[in-house]
């Protein structure tokens, strides 16, 4: 698995120049965002685990741009890029990383649990493999309602070994659900390389015995990814049965910020970095005459400015009030009474112990 695959098909045609530049801009934004997130982590502005997506931008943008606005996207704990590609303002993502109240999940979720319902980004999920049945359930709802919406579910090569993979692919095939499963084969599940965790390493084939045919795209190439995922989405939309797409890519950084990367060689990383999707795509656009040097610089400047603004926004946003601790555990509703929490009576003490005290959050009705 140490050799980066060459794109197997002829490069698909470019989209409209404006569209192509927007793709590059989004890839650039994600790259700069991730780099900055890493810096903020080093400066302890961001806590928890931070899984960066650097190297996988073509996979993210190529697939996100193949989606309609009405389609759904379901992702993993490595999903800042997905949120941004889907249109979530970077400042909301950064504020979430900072644990601030203006974060897209009010600071409850953090890096691993992004969400933007409005833009049908149906979440980053921290449990490897946990998102597959959820995506199939969303697809079930779409099908049930007779819409032509499709759900795209991304997960890693490592996740393909989780029980939910077999269960969900079988269910989706059996019930003919409009869902595209996209396995992002970045060659590793944490520190375990593909051939050390999966008996079958040709991942596009891993759904065949479950009734889900596969396709593969070059996840380092935004055009190829877009073309293949578009085709998959269209087939699923029309034929109403699931497909599996393998996106072959590589993460340039460690699994998370605390990864000494002893499981792979510097040479291997360098080799893959030669195929860095950002400069590759930019160079292509320049060659094709749809990107001037000036435009390229502008894209860079815009990305940096947006990330600067995101950090500033996140800095300025307040932390959640201690009194909000019990908010959003339940949807409080008039058909439920009694003590939702058995520590209702202790809540005030707990909150009093913290600096700011606020009135009872209302979990106890009557």
């Amino acid at each position, binding site marked *: 698995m140490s050799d980066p695959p060459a794109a197997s098909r002829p490069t698909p045609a470019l989209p409209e120049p404006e569209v192509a530049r927007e793709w590059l801009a989004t890839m650039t934004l994600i790259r700069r965002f991730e780099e900055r997130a890493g810096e903020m982590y080093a400066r302890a502005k961001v806590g928890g685990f931070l899984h960066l997506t650097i190297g996988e931008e073509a996979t993210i943008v190529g697939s996100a741009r193949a989606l309609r606005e009405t389609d759904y996207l379901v992702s993993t704990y490595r999903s800042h890029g997905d949120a941004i590609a889907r249109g979530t303002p970077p400042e909301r993502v950064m504020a979430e990383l900072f644990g601030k109240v203006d974060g897209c*999940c009010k600071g*409850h979720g953090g890096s691993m649990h992004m*969400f933007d319902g409005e833009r049908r980004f149906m979440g980053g999920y921290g449990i490897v493999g946990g998102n597959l049945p959820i995506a199939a359930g969303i697809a079930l709802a779409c099908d049930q309602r007779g819409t032509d919406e499709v759900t795209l579910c991304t997960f890693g090569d490592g996740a393909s070994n989780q029980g939910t993979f077999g269960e969900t692919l079988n269910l989706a095939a059996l019930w003919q659900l409009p869902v595209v499963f996209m396995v992002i084969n970045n060659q590793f599940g944490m520190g375990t390389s593909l051939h050390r965790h999966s008996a079958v390493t040709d991942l596009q084939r891993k759904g065949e015995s479950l009734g889900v045919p596969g396709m593969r795209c070059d996840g380092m190439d935004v055009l190829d990814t877009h073309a293949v995922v578009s085709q998959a989405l269209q087939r699923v939309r029309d034929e109403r049965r699931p497909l599996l797409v393998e996106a072959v890519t590589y993460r340039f950084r460690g699994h998370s910020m605390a990864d000494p990367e002893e499981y792979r060689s510097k040479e291997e990383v360098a080799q893959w970095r030669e195929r860095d999707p950002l400069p590759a795509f930019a160079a292509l656009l320049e060659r094709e005459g749809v990107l001037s040097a000036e435009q390229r610089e502008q894209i860079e400047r815009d990305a940096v400015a947006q990330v600067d603004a995101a950090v500033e926004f996140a800095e300025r946003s307040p932390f959640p009030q201690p009194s909000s601790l019990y908010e*959003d555990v339940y*949807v409080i509703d008039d058909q439920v009474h009694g003590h939702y929490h058995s520590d209702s009576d202790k809540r005030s003490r707990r909150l009093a112990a913290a600096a700011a005290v606020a009135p009872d959050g209302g979990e106890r009705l009557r």
Partner: protein
Amino acid sequence: MSELRYRDALKLSLQEEMKRDENVILMGEDIGVFGGAFKVTSGLLEQFGERRVRDTPISENSIVGMGVGAAMVGLRPVVELMTVNFALLAFDQLVNHAAHIHYMFGGQARVPLVVRMPQGAGHQLGPTHSHSLEAMFLHVPGLLVAVPSTPADARGLLKAAIRDENPVIFIEHESLYGVRGEVDEADDRPLAFGQARVAREGGDVTIVGVSRMALTAERAAERLASEHGIEAEVIDPRTLRPLDLDTILESVAKTNRCVVVEEGWPHGGVGANLAALVSEQAFDDLDAPVVRVSGADVPMPYSKPLEEIAFPHEPDVVQAVLSVTQAGSAQ
């Protein structure tokens, strides 16, 4: 008013809610063509069609997860797990996903999912098929937990569960499906969660009976009255999350003694939780420690005479009550 079996009250509830709201769908193993392992859903496939009554493969974790996903975008799935024992395969989707999604995504997403499952011992199904796991479920914030013991409660609470915006673990009992009880078919209002039912009034001791044990407690109370002149107040909490602790505390304030009867394991059980809560909040009311009557702390054996002594029956409850009433009078 008509007399319905618990099973039929549940079916009625499903029918009513499915007619009321087309977003309500059923998923589960053998609920359709087979009619349900305990026949709760029999006839519903014919009535509502195979898009709304979905037989699933044997894939508990993913069935629940699909329910979660479908609920997030507006369906109101009712997932049947054939028995609570198989819910152990779905704990990740129940805890890490169903229970936490609303909070984790800052209130943006809702999971109006109901997961129905029967529990309990008594049919000689042995160690893997006889669990009572309500203590594990009530531990988890984000879940609501219902444990109805009568046909009317089963119907009313299931309606509330389906209409509620939170994920609900709806625990039925294998031994209750055939039990009959009065149901007012004309009154199709949901029964609010968090309101205990005082099954019997009495001033000498409070007996809290969970799930099927509410019935065991009631029968024990009759015997206590007729054989020992002790008037027990029997409370069925009906839901364990939310918990109507107020009703229990009011009763204990009157009786000064409390016995909790549950079918599950004692170590970290429902009884332990109630004992802790009652002791904490009514310490000065208690003339004796809260006594717990529970399933034996063993995997459930198959053999009839062993199984019989491994979960509570009336004599166990009677004996426990006598132990606290005697302790009380000694003070």
